Protein backbone atom coordinates (compact mmCIF):
# COMPACT_ATOMS: atom_id res chain seq x y z
CA UNK A 1 0.00 0.00 0.00
CA UNK A 2 1.42 3.36 -0.94
CA UNK A 3 -0.10 6.80 -0.79
CA UNK A 4 -0.42 6.75 -4.56
CA UNK A 5 -2.88 3.90 -4.27
CA UNK A 6 -5.38 6.07 -2.47
CA UNK A 7 -7.99 8.25 -4.14
CA UNK A 8 -6.84 11.88 -4.19
CA UNK A 9 -9.58 12.80 -1.70
CA UNK A 10 -8.44 10.03 0.68
CA UNK A 11 -4.84 11.08 0.27
CA UNK A 12 -5.68 14.63 1.27
CA UNK A 13 -7.74 13.40 4.18
CA UNK A 14 -4.99 11.08 5.40
CA UNK A 15 -2.49 13.91 5.21
CA UNK A 16 -4.79 16.02 7.37
CA UNK A 17 -5.18 13.10 9.78
CA UNK A 18 -1.43 12.68 9.95
CA UNK A 19 -1.07 16.32 11.03
CA UNK A 20 -3.79 15.89 13.64
CA UNK A 21 -2.21 12.76 15.09
CA UNK A 22 1.14 14.50 15.29
CA UNK A 23 -0.53 17.08 17.51
CA UNK A 24 -2.67 14.89 19.74
CA UNK A 25 -0.39 11.86 19.97
CA UNK A 26 3.16 12.79 19.00
CA UNK A 27 6.04 10.44 19.68
CA UNK A 28 7.20 11.66 23.09
CA UNK A 29 10.45 13.58 22.68
CA UNK A 30 12.23 11.85 25.57
CA UNK A 31 11.53 8.47 23.96
CA UNK A 32 13.09 9.58 20.68
CA UNK A 33 16.15 10.83 22.55
CA UNK A 34 16.42 7.59 24.50
CA UNK A 35 16.19 5.61 21.25
CA UNK A 36 18.96 7.72 19.75
CA UNK A 37 21.06 7.19 22.86
CA UNK A 38 20.46 3.43 22.49
CA UNK A 39 23.17 3.48 19.84
CA UNK A 40 25.81 3.62 22.59
CA UNK A 41 24.87 0.01 23.46
CA UNK A 42 26.15 -1.08 20.08
CA UNK A 43 28.72 -3.84 20.38
CA UNK A 44 31.13 -4.15 17.51
CA UNK A 45 32.83 -7.50 17.93
CA UNK A 46 30.25 -9.39 19.90
CA UNK A 47 28.47 -12.48 18.67
CA UNK A 48 24.68 -12.23 18.83
CA UNK A 49 22.50 -14.77 20.60
CA UNK A 50 18.95 -14.58 19.29
CA UNK A 51 15.88 -14.96 21.45
CA UNK A 52 14.62 -18.36 20.31
CA UNK A 53 11.92 -19.09 22.89
CA UNK A 54 9.82 -17.10 25.32
CA UNK A 55 7.35 -18.90 27.55
CA UNK A 56 4.89 -15.99 27.48
CA UNK A 57 4.60 -16.18 23.69
CA UNK A 58 4.96 -19.91 23.27
CA UNK A 59 2.65 -20.96 26.06
CA UNK A 60 -1.08 -20.47 26.41
CA UNK A 61 -2.28 -16.93 25.89
CA UNK A 62 -3.77 -16.76 29.34
CA UNK A 63 -1.50 -17.75 32.17
CA UNK A 64 -0.87 -16.93 35.79
CA UNK A 65 0.89 -13.60 35.95
CA UNK A 66 3.11 -14.74 38.82
CA UNK A 67 4.49 -17.82 37.02
CA UNK A 68 8.16 -17.33 36.19
CA UNK A 69 8.94 -16.54 32.59
CA UNK A 70 11.59 -18.50 30.70
CA UNK A 71 13.64 -16.91 27.95
CA UNK A 72 15.97 -18.94 25.75
CA UNK A 73 18.73 -17.36 23.70
CA UNK A 74 20.77 -19.30 21.18
CA UNK A 75 23.98 -18.74 19.25
CA UNK A 76 25.25 -21.82 17.45
CA UNK A 77 25.88 -24.55 20.01
CA UNK A 78 25.61 -22.16 22.94
CA UNK A 79 22.31 -21.65 24.67
CA UNK A 80 21.29 -19.51 27.57
CA UNK A 81 18.13 -20.00 29.57
CA UNK A 82 16.95 -17.23 31.86
CA UNK A 83 14.15 -17.36 34.37
CA UNK A 84 12.57 -13.98 35.01
CA UNK A 85 10.62 -13.40 38.20
CA UNK A 86 9.40 -10.39 40.12
CA UNK A 87 11.85 -8.98 42.63
CA UNK A 88 10.58 -7.17 45.68
CA UNK A 89 7.39 -5.21 45.92
CA UNK A 90 5.54 -3.75 42.96
CA UNK A 91 6.21 -4.29 39.28
CA UNK A 92 9.42 -2.35 38.94
CA UNK A 93 12.21 -4.89 39.34
CA UNK A 94 13.09 -8.41 38.24
CA UNK A 95 15.22 -11.25 39.51
CA UNK A 96 17.09 -13.22 36.86
CA UNK A 97 18.36 -16.75 37.32
CA UNK A 98 20.14 -18.21 34.35
CA UNK A 99 22.27 -21.01 33.06
CA UNK A 100 24.59 -21.08 30.11
CA UNK A 101 25.05 -24.35 28.27
CA UNK A 102 27.90 -25.01 25.89
CA UNK A 103 30.38 -22.44 27.16
CA UNK A 104 31.63 -21.20 30.48
CA UNK A 105 31.77 -17.40 30.60
CA UNK A 106 33.81 -15.60 33.23
CA UNK A 107 31.01 -13.20 33.97
CA UNK A 108 27.59 -12.06 32.87
CA UNK A 109 26.73 -8.42 32.42
CA UNK A 110 23.02 -7.61 32.57
CA UNK A 111 22.50 -4.46 30.52
CA UNK A 112 19.36 -2.47 31.25
CA UNK A 113 17.82 0.96 30.72
CA UNK A 114 19.58 2.51 33.73
CA UNK A 115 23.00 0.94 33.29
CA UNK A 116 24.30 -2.54 33.92
CA UNK A 117 24.98 -5.14 36.57
CA UNK A 118 27.81 -7.67 36.39
CA UNK A 119 27.60 -11.01 38.16
CA UNK A 120 29.84 -14.11 38.24
CA UNK A 121 28.90 -17.60 37.06
CA UNK A 122 29.39 -20.76 39.09
CA UNK A 123 30.99 -24.04 38.01
CA UNK A 124 27.84 -25.09 36.21
CA UNK A 125 27.48 -21.85 34.24
CA UNK A 126 24.71 -20.61 36.47
CA UNK A 127 24.22 -17.04 37.58
CA UNK A 128 21.78 -14.87 39.48
CA UNK A 129 21.15 -11.12 39.14
CA UNK A 130 18.78 -8.92 41.15
CA UNK A 131 17.33 -6.43 41.26
CA UNK A 132 17.17 -5.64 37.54
CA UNK A 133 14.83 -2.76 36.62
CA UNK A 134 11.78 -3.83 34.60
CA UNK A 135 12.16 -2.79 30.95
CA UNK A 136 14.56 -3.67 28.15
CA UNK A 137 17.44 -5.98 29.05
CA UNK A 138 20.25 -7.73 27.22
CA UNK A 139 22.90 -10.04 28.63
CA UNK A 140 26.54 -9.87 27.65
CA UNK A 141 28.60 -12.97 28.38
CA UNK A 142 32.29 -12.25 28.74
CA UNK A 143 34.95 -14.90 28.55
CA UNK A 144 38.48 -15.31 29.79
CA UNK A 145 41.00 -15.23 26.96
CA UNK A 146 40.38 -13.92 23.50
CA UNK A 147 36.93 -15.18 22.74
CA UNK A 148 34.68 -12.22 21.83
CA UNK A 149 31.68 -11.58 24.08
CA UNK A 150 28.32 -13.04 23.32
CA UNK A 151 25.40 -10.62 23.64
CA UNK A 152 21.74 -11.50 23.63
CA UNK A 153 19.01 -9.83 21.70
CA UNK A 154 17.21 -7.15 23.74
CA UNK A 155 13.88 -8.07 25.27
CA UNK A 156 11.39 -6.36 27.58
CA UNK A 157 11.10 -7.96 31.01
Amino acid at each position, binding site marked *: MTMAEFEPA*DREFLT*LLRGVLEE*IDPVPGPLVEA*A*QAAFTWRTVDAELAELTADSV*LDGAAVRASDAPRLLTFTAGAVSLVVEVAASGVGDVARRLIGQIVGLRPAEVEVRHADGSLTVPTDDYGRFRAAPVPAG*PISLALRFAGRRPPLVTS*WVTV
Partner: protein
Amino acid sequence: MAVAVERARGRAPATDGLAIPAWFDRYGRGVADPSTSDLLRDAAGGDQRAWDHLVERYSRLVWAVTRGHRLAYADSADVFQTTWLRLVEHLGQLRDPEHLAGWLSTTARHECLRVLRMGRRERPDEDVAAGVDPQGSAGPSPEAALLVDEERATVAAAFARLSERCRALLRLVVAEPGLSYIEISLALGIPVGSIGPTRGRCLSHLRDLLEERG
Protein backbone atom coordinates in the same frame (compact mmCIF):
# COMPACT_ATOMS: atom_id res chain seq x y z
CA MET B 1 30.83 5.18 -11.06
CA ALA B 2 29.57 7.92 -8.73
CA VAL B 3 28.04 5.31 -6.48
CA ALA B 4 31.32 3.50 -6.22
CA VAL B 5 33.10 6.72 -5.29
CA GLU B 6 30.54 7.45 -2.60
CA ARG B 7 30.76 3.98 -1.24
CA ALA B 8 34.49 4.26 -1.09
CA ARG B 9 34.15 7.52 0.81
CA GLY B 10 31.55 6.12 3.16
CA ARG B 11 33.84 3.25 3.96
CA ALA B 12 36.90 5.30 4.68
CA PRO B 13 39.09 3.59 7.29
CA ALA B 14 37.90 4.06 10.85
CA THR B 15 41.29 5.52 11.73
CA ASP B 16 40.42 8.56 9.63
CA GLY B 17 38.65 10.75 12.15
CA LEU B 18 37.36 12.99 9.37
CA ALA B 19 35.58 10.27 7.43
CA ILE B 20 32.39 11.70 5.96
CA PRO B 21 29.36 9.47 5.49
CA ALA B 22 28.36 9.05 1.87
CA TRP B 23 24.94 10.60 2.31
CA PHE B 24 26.34 13.74 3.93
CA ASP B 25 28.26 14.57 0.78
CA ARG B 26 25.63 13.55 -1.68
CA TYR B 27 22.92 15.76 -0.23
CA GLY B 28 25.16 18.63 0.66
CA ARG B 29 26.45 19.47 4.05
CA GLY B 30 23.74 20.06 6.60
CA VAL B 31 20.94 19.43 4.11
CA ALA B 32 20.59 15.77 4.71
CA ASP B 33 17.74 13.76 3.29
CA PRO B 34 19.68 10.56 2.94
CA SER B 35 18.23 7.32 1.68
CA THR B 36 17.35 4.66 4.22
CA SER B 37 19.82 2.40 2.51
CA ASP B 38 22.67 4.88 3.14
CA LEU B 39 21.54 5.41 6.73
CA LEU B 40 21.45 1.68 7.46
CA ARG B 41 24.91 1.18 6.02
CA ASP B 42 26.41 4.14 7.87
CA ALA B 43 24.73 3.28 11.16
CA ALA B 44 26.01 -0.29 10.84
CA GLY B 45 29.44 1.28 10.39
CA GLY B 46 29.09 3.15 13.68
CA ASP B 47 27.78 6.54 12.56
CA GLN B 48 25.67 8.07 15.33
CA ARG B 49 24.21 10.77 13.05
CA ALA B 50 22.95 8.16 10.61
CA TRP B 51 21.37 6.34 13.53
CA ASP B 52 19.71 9.54 14.78
CA HIS B 53 18.20 10.04 11.33
CA LEU B 54 16.88 6.48 11.26
CA VAL B 55 15.23 6.94 14.64
CA GLU B 56 13.65 10.22 13.56
CA ARG B 57 12.41 8.73 10.32
CA TYR B 58 10.82 5.61 11.79
CA SER B 59 9.88 6.53 15.35
CA ARG B 60 6.37 7.53 14.24
CA LEU B 61 5.90 4.04 12.82
CA VAL B 62 7.13 2.24 15.95
CA TRP B 63 5.00 4.51 18.12
CA ALA B 64 1.94 3.84 15.96
CA VAL B 65 2.37 0.09 16.45
CA THR B 66 2.75 0.36 20.22
CA ARG B 67 -0.22 2.74 20.43
CA GLY B 68 -2.22 0.19 18.47
CA HIS B 69 -2.01 -2.21 21.40
CA ARG B 70 -3.62 -1.69 24.77
CA LEU B 71 -0.52 -0.91 26.76
CA ALA B 72 -0.02 1.43 29.68
CA TYR B 73 2.23 4.35 28.85
CA ALA B 74 5.26 2.95 30.71
CA ASP B 75 4.90 -0.32 28.80
CA SER B 76 4.61 1.48 25.44
CA ALA B 77 7.79 3.32 26.33
CA ASP B 78 9.56 0.03 27.14
CA VAL B 79 8.42 -1.57 23.90
CA PHE B 80 9.54 1.48 21.93
CA GLN B 81 12.99 1.40 23.51
CA THR B 82 13.39 -2.37 23.20
CA THR B 83 12.53 -2.18 19.50
CA TRP B 84 15.31 0.32 18.86
CA LEU B 85 17.80 -1.55 21.02
CA ARG B 86 16.97 -4.67 19.06
CA LEU B 87 17.72 -2.81 15.85
CA VAL B 88 21.07 -1.62 17.24
CA GLU B 89 22.10 -5.25 17.66
CA HIS B 90 20.77 -6.29 14.27
CA LEU B 91 22.12 -3.44 12.16
CA GLY B 92 24.81 -5.65 10.70
CA GLN B 93 22.25 -8.17 9.48
CA LEU B 94 19.63 -5.80 8.16
CA ARG B 95 20.99 -4.09 5.12
CA ASP B 96 17.91 -4.16 2.91
CA PRO B 97 16.06 -0.85 3.38
CA GLU B 98 12.92 -2.40 1.88
CA HIS B 99 12.58 -4.59 4.93
CA LEU B 100 13.28 -2.05 7.65
CA ALA B 101 9.73 -0.72 8.18
CA GLY B 102 8.33 -4.25 8.28
CA TRP B 103 11.11 -5.44 10.57
CA LEU B 104 10.52 -2.57 13.01
CA SER B 105 6.76 -2.96 13.10
CA THR B 106 6.90 -6.75 13.52
CA THR B 107 9.49 -6.45 16.26
CA ALA B 108 7.39 -3.83 18.06
CA ARG B 109 4.27 -5.99 17.73
CA HIS B 110 6.02 -9.01 19.25
CA GLU B 111 7.25 -6.92 22.15
CA CYS B 112 3.72 -5.59 22.68
CA LEU B 113 2.41 -9.16 22.87
CA ARG B 114 5.12 -10.20 25.32
CA VAL B 115 4.34 -7.27 27.58
CA LEU B 116 0.59 -7.87 27.39
CA ARG B 117 1.00 -11.53 28.22
CA MET B 118 3.39 -10.84 31.06
CA GLY B 119 0.25 -9.69 32.78
CA ARG B 120 1.21 -6.10 33.09
CA ARG B 121 -1.55 -3.57 33.45
CA GLU B 122 -3.68 -2.77 30.40
CA ARG B 123 -4.31 0.80 29.50
CA PRO B 124 -7.78 2.00 30.56
CA ASP B 125 -10.16 2.43 27.66
CA GLU B 126 -10.93 6.06 28.41
CA ASP B 127 -7.28 6.81 28.00
CA VAL B 128 -7.28 5.34 24.52
CA ALA B 129 -10.47 7.02 23.41
CA ALA B 130 -9.50 10.47 24.57
CA GLY B 131 -5.99 10.21 23.17
CA VAL B 132 -4.78 11.50 26.50
CA ASP B 133 -1.06 11.82 26.93
CA PRO B 134 -0.48 9.80 30.09
CA GLN B 135 2.64 11.84 30.73
CA GLY B 136 0.43 14.84 31.34
CA SER B 137 -1.47 15.69 34.48
CA ALA B 138 -4.09 13.30 35.76
CA GLY B 139 -7.55 13.40 34.25
CA PRO B 140 -8.56 13.83 30.64
CA SER B 141 -7.11 17.07 29.39
CA PRO B 142 -9.04 18.66 26.50
CA GLU B 143 -6.29 17.99 23.98
CA ALA B 144 -8.54 18.92 21.13
CA ALA B 145 -9.07 22.37 22.57
CA LEU B 146 -5.37 23.04 22.24
CA LEU B 147 -5.60 22.74 18.51
CA VAL B 148 -5.77 26.16 17.01
CA ASP B 149 -7.20 24.95 13.77
CA GLU B 150 -10.88 24.16 14.22
CA GLU B 151 -10.96 21.63 11.41
CA ARG B 152 -8.15 19.70 13.05
CA ALA B 153 -9.92 19.80 16.39
CA THR B 154 -13.01 18.35 14.74
CA VAL B 155 -10.99 15.57 13.13
CA ALA B 156 -9.30 14.80 16.44
CA ALA B 157 -12.65 14.48 18.19
CA ALA B 158 -14.04 12.26 15.45
CA PHE B 159 -10.91 10.09 15.46
CA ALA B 160 -11.28 9.55 19.21
CA ARG B 161 -14.76 8.10 18.59
CA LEU B 162 -13.54 5.45 16.16
CA SER B 163 -13.17 1.83 17.26
CA GLU B 164 -9.82 0.81 18.66
CA ARG B 165 -9.05 -1.26 15.58
CA CYS B 166 -9.80 1.65 13.27
CA ARG B 167 -7.63 3.99 15.25
CA ALA B 168 -4.78 1.48 15.25
CA LEU B 169 -5.03 0.87 11.52
CA LEU B 170 -5.31 4.52 10.49
CA ARG B 171 -2.51 5.51 12.82
CA LEU B 172 -0.28 2.97 11.14
CA VAL B 173 -1.34 3.92 7.61
CA VAL B 174 -0.57 7.59 8.10
CA ALA B 175 2.67 6.85 9.95
CA GLU B 176 4.03 4.64 7.18
CA PRO B 177 1.95 4.64 3.99
CA GLY B 178 4.47 2.33 2.31
CA LEU B 179 3.68 -0.74 4.44
CA SER B 180 2.33 -3.73 2.55
CA TYR B 181 -0.87 -5.46 3.65
CA ILE B 182 1.25 -8.32 4.97
CA GLU B 183 3.36 -5.94 7.03
CA ILE B 184 0.25 -4.27 8.43
CA SER B 185 -1.19 -7.66 9.23
CA LEU B 186 1.97 -8.65 11.12
CA ALA B 187 2.10 -5.30 12.92
CA LEU B 188 -1.47 -5.30 14.20
CA GLY B 189 -2.63 -8.89 14.08
CA ILE B 190 -5.40 -8.12 11.58
CA PRO B 191 -5.96 -10.81 8.90
CA VAL B 192 -4.45 -9.74 5.56
CA GLY B 193 -7.71 -10.20 3.71
CA SER B 194 -9.62 -7.80 5.92
CA ILE B 195 -7.16 -4.90 5.84
CA GLY B 196 -8.44 -3.33 2.63
CA PRO B 197 -12.13 -3.50 3.60
CA THR B 198 -11.40 -2.43 7.19
CA ARG B 199 -9.39 0.54 6.01
CA GLY B 200 -12.21 1.64 3.73
CA ARG B 201 -14.79 1.21 6.46
CA CYS B 202 -12.69 3.14 8.99
CA LEU B 203 -12.18 6.04 6.62
CA SER B 204 -15.85 6.30 5.75
CA HIS B 205 -16.83 6.01 9.40
CA LEU B 206 -14.47 8.86 10.20
CA ARG B 207 -16.05 10.90 7.41
CA ASP B 208 -19.53 10.16 8.74
CA LEU B 209 -18.54 11.31 12.21
CA LEU B 210 -17.17 14.52 10.74
CA GLU B 211 -20.35 15.19 8.82
CA GLU B 212 -22.45 14.62 11.93
CA ARG B 213 -20.52 17.40 13.60
CA GLY B 214 -20.16 19.64 10.60
